[in-house]
């Protein structure tokens, strides 16, 4: 019961968060320099055309009227019409979202697959050559910009060795795994570097903890100590970090999707910003906010399950 209550509380807390996100994004978009009517009509349009478009978009109405309209429409599931795509914002986002979610889940899975075992190896070999090599390689990954790693992978693995396609996203599930491998690795390299460092530190800390030493003294087999005591406890802080890095990962898709020509919401966001497509920017930001909030919620729930102390508090 306590778990259900906790979940409900967390869900209710999300409402003010979304409201705040809506206010901030509404104001931020309107603070951007550049008139959306000019962006739509193009440089060649006359001043009369611009005025007509502003009127049609409702941009001449007072700010609070525009916000009220945005809020009430959004609550009814209407995110407006995209100026750039000439279609309902919701349809545009729904068409593109699965690709980005696929990319994000793929990248996170790869991050865990890369970071988990390596952090373990580094931690139990602390200070030895294995530890040094792993940390040095990840340091390089962490210090290089995402787009540069992407271009390097494209140039060598796709264009020269032809092991992977340069762009696109495939049709079937397996095809998608193959097409999105390079973009996912690009995003995963950065995330896994952070995860690896954190997990390594956490494992080292737990290895030194008294209850682990006690377990050793009791004569428990090392595999049981690592599995039951070390890993579970070291994961708590890493799960939090994993949740936080989803936000980072979402911003990573903006760049990755552009470099790898993946038609997801990250690339759509860039296009929307350049075109000053207010409804689409608002809709996308809200979508990102919902996604990130859901991930945080899941992180909390998972952490709650891992760490009984949180349930008591």
């Amino acid at each position, binding site marked *: 019961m306590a778990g259900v209550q906790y979940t409900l509380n967390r869900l209710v807390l999300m409402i003010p968060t979304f409201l705040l996100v809506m206010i901030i994004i509404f104001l931020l978009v309107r603070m951007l320099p*550049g008139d959306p009517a000019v962006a739509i009509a193009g440089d060649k349009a006359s001043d009369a055309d611009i005025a007509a478009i502003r009127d049609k978009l409702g941009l001449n109405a007072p700010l609070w009227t525009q916000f009220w309209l945005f809020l009430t429409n959004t609550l009814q599931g209407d995110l407006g019409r995209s100026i750039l795509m000439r279609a309902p914002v919701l349809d545009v986002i729904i068409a593109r979202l699965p690709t980005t979610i696929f990319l994000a889940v793929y990248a996170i899975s790869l991050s865990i697959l890369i970071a988990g075992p390596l952090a373990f190896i580094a931690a139990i070999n602390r200070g030895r050559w294995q530890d040094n090599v792993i940390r040095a390689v990840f340091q390089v990954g962490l210090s290089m910009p995402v787009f540069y790693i992407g271009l390097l992978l494209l140039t060598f693995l796709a264009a020269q060795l032809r092991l992977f396609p340069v762009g696109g996203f495939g049709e079937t599930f397996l095809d998608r795994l193959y097409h999105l491998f390079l973009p996912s690795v690009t995003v995963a390299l950065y995330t896994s570097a952070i995860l690896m460092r954190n997990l390594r530190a956490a494992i080292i800390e737990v290895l030194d903890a008294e209850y682990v030493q006690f377990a050793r003294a009791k004569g428990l087999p090392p595999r049981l100590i690592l599995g039951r005591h070390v890993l579970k406890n070291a994961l708590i802080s890493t799960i939090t970090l994993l949740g936080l890095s989803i936000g980072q990962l979402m911003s990573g898709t903006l760049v990755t999707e*552009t470099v790898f*020509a993946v038609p997801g919401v990250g690339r*759509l966001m860039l296009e929307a910003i350049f075109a000053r497509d207010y409804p689409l920017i608002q809709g996308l930001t809200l979508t990102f906010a919902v996604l990130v909030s859901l991930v945080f919620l899941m992180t909390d729930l998972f952490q709650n399950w891992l760490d009984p102390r949180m349930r008591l508090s």
Partner: protein
Amino acid sequence: MKAAALAVGFALSTALGSLTIQTADAVERGGTLNFARYDGSKLVDPIYADRNPDIWMVGSLFSTLLEPSADGKDLVGSLAESYEVSADGKTVSLKLRNGANFSDGSPVTGEDVVFSLGRARNPDLGPWAGLLSAVSSVDASGADITISLSSPDPALLSMLATFNTAIVSKKAFDAAPGANDQEKSAALFAKGGPGLGSGPFYLSGFEQGTSMTFSANPHYWKEGEDGKPLPYLEGVHFQIIPDDATRVLKLTAGEVDVAEFIPFSRVAELDADPAIDMNLYPSTRIIYSPINTRDTRTDGSANPLADKRVRQAINYATNKEALIGLVLQGAGKPMSSPVMSSATRLATDMSPLYGYNLDKAKALVAEAGLKPGTEITLTTLAGSADDGTIFAALQQMWAPLGITLVAEQVDGATRGSKNRSGEFDIHTYGWVDDVNDPSQVTGWLGYYPTRKAVGTGWNNAEFNALYEASSSEMDPEKRADQYHQMQEIYAEAAPLLFMYETPFAVAVSGKVDGYLQTPLGNNVFERVFLER
């Protein structure tokens, strides 16, 4: 103007002969061309196309009554096999070609022409209606079309070869779902399929921002060198790849056959690749920078650029050849006409237009009394490597004049707003003609009532009067003379920093033949074939 009937067939064959040089038996039929684009189409409808990625594709799906020749300087027949202009210039008679069909096999009729031109000149619909403002009525009797004008319009024939007057099927349009023209247009585009246009292809697939597919129109009227109907290809598949480097990689990896908008820094490298033809197609694209000519800036301070001599001085102090070397790696040429590219009709060759002359520039600023250390802001596009290079070069080139050039980086939408409000000193800009007539670019750059002479605020009564007179001058010689005078006035007043012309850089796989991008930017696929 004397009645002029054109031997359209002859002109057409001459123009197209220069376009393709392969012999008939070398032509392979079939296959799909894979094309990497920098940006996707949103709505390819003749009257609603307002961005280049839309405009440049209209011709593949829809035919016009006339069409530009291969070099973009003349007109040849397309759906109309002949045309005639009356002596008073107020009536244009055209005869529809026998055998011109829409992509579902139904014939193109006079009714379709009346319907399409009616849409094109309706100011409540698309943004291009103004181009047909002289037209008072369009009538059809069988294959004979009569266009009546309220006043003579020397640009009208060019407009009939422009994307916005392309012919759509009335039957297909009427049958489409939707409450109004916009909704019907969007529904037709979303659905695709044959029957709407009479171009060499029809739209057969579209995914917003991702891909687009054209399929061959089996009823297209044109024939190739082998005497068989065009197009040679079965279809064209477009992929949208906004990143320059990825587009090039796709081509070199063999995943696409054509990549457009190749960065000029990569041209030499691709040119050296034996598997790739690196094409630099002549274009009407010019790169220039509008100069604010108003007496005061928007913040109320005195504007040093209001003095014509200062504007002339910075033009003389700008080494265009050096800029071309830095930005385009040599793949360009200095502007030779102040208001248009050399590929635009009626362009006067005034080269060298403000050839590099630092001594003259220094004398002009001294005469104008420009204070040393005068600060001038160059507004550039954030993230544009070209603009960054231009700024760094101009800062050095103008320093000897005592000008401190500072950069202000903004995005495209902000630059557009600044241009309209006059909140700038100088900003980078570019232009490509949409219309096969010099009136559009000249009106844009110099005629004050259109757009305050590209936002510069330059308002010259003599220029404006010449422009208005040229808009109804049917004598080609007199019109050419008016354009010549306008170019002289404009060059002397220097409301722009005159920079350079750039070609369209398109890299094509060696197995592709017959691809063309016209000086207006239109992508032409009808004669493309793939070597097996």
